[in-house]
């Protein structure tokens, strides 16, 4: 079992979807999709006068978006950054509430956000992505539980993988994670 914490508005989590599924499929390992609320900020406008830290954050935000788009092209997936990052709370609550294999919902929710820029805090949209499998979740209670789970696991960003008591943030760790996967585990 591979635990992975995701947020649908996290570009790094979206880009981790295909490689993670490929790795899980290679070893017949089940993926346990867990929710984490991440903070995503729009790229700040350049100000006429900036202190060094503000410039650093702006340059970093531009570079990170370019980097994500670069690897999206390499993965042949569509990645449309919305003008301002959306709220994904309802979808995260739904992910938390769903039982069984949630891969189909995860794929649909990521595509909804990154291909169609849909509102994943909209109950109707998210419920349609989940199909008729589950009634609408209690968002506030779910988010409180998610927050407690995330804090206990030490997760600070997405995608975060937990395997063999090790926490790895980012799909760049997949080579190490692969060494920890027990086939069919």
């Amino acid at each position, binding site marked *: 079992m591979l635990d992975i914490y995701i947020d649908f508005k996290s570009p790094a989590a979206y880009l981790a979807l295909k490689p993670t599924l490929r790795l899980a499929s290679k070893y017949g390992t089940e993926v346990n999709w867990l929710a984490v609320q991440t903070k995503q900020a729009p790229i700040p406008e350049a100000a006429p006068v900036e202190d060094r830290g503000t410039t650093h954050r702006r*340059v970093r935000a531009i570079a990170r978006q370019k*980097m994500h788009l670069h690897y999206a092209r390499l993965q042949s997936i569509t990645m449309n950054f919305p003008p301002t990052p959306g709220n994904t709370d309802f979808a995260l609550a739904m992910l938390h509430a769903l039982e069984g294999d949630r891969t189909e919902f995860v794929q649909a929710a990521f595509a909804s956000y990154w291909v169609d820029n849909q509102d994943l805090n909209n109950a109707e949209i998210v419920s349609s992505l989940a199909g008729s499998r589950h009634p609408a979740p209690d968002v506030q209670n779910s988010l409180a539980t998610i927050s407690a789970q995330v804090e206990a696991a*030490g997760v600070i960003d997405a995608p975060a993988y937990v395997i063999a008591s090790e926490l*790895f*943030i980012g*799909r*760049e760790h*997949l*080579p190490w994670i692969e060494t920890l996967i027990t086939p069919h585990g």
Partner: protein
Amino acid sequence: MRATYNALESHCPLIVYIDIKSPYAFVAIKPTLALEAELGIQFDWRPLTLDIPSYLGSARKKEGRVIESDRTPQQWNGVKYAYRDARRYAERQGYMLKGTEKIWDSSLINIGILWVMENDRARLSNFFEAAYPPFWRRALDVEDIDVVEATIEASGVSAEGFASYASGIGRQRHDDLQNQLHPSGIYGVPTYVFDKHILFGREHLPYVRWYLSGQRGAAPDIAYEI
């Protein structure tokens, strides 16, 4: 000896920006040197002296306890994870990585990179080995000119003239380069610059290898190779 540096241009096919006080730069040195050897290409290694307090808050420790800090809990969580993460990879490389007790001014040892690049390029990897592992064992005061000169000598490179270089033309070249970095889109270490690509982090080494070795087959995704 070169007159000046352009942040995005080089006679080499790849520029690598590093800073000794970054744990991520430390664990990038070995795999980047290995790639350089594998490809048979010399990279253009340069300093990027991070101004960490400007974007990540500042802190000072003594005997493992924080005695000064203006970091938020979120910044501390990020810093703690970054060190844990870099440490496990450093240990895989056979190195010890202890958290630093203060945010160092690494400009002097970074000027040392320019010195070695300009005077004895063939011994650059010796210089990295003489400087980085001891620094991360807390055994190297990189703000002390005598220590930096001794480190240069320990790598087999003459340090004669380094003190005047470090306070004169070397400092000028270093500072001039730092002023170009943000406007060029460069902000962290390690950063790899090649053919209009600016990629931050050693996770891009698989792509760098693919790109510089002829771009055959499918381009690889990011990965920390182990």
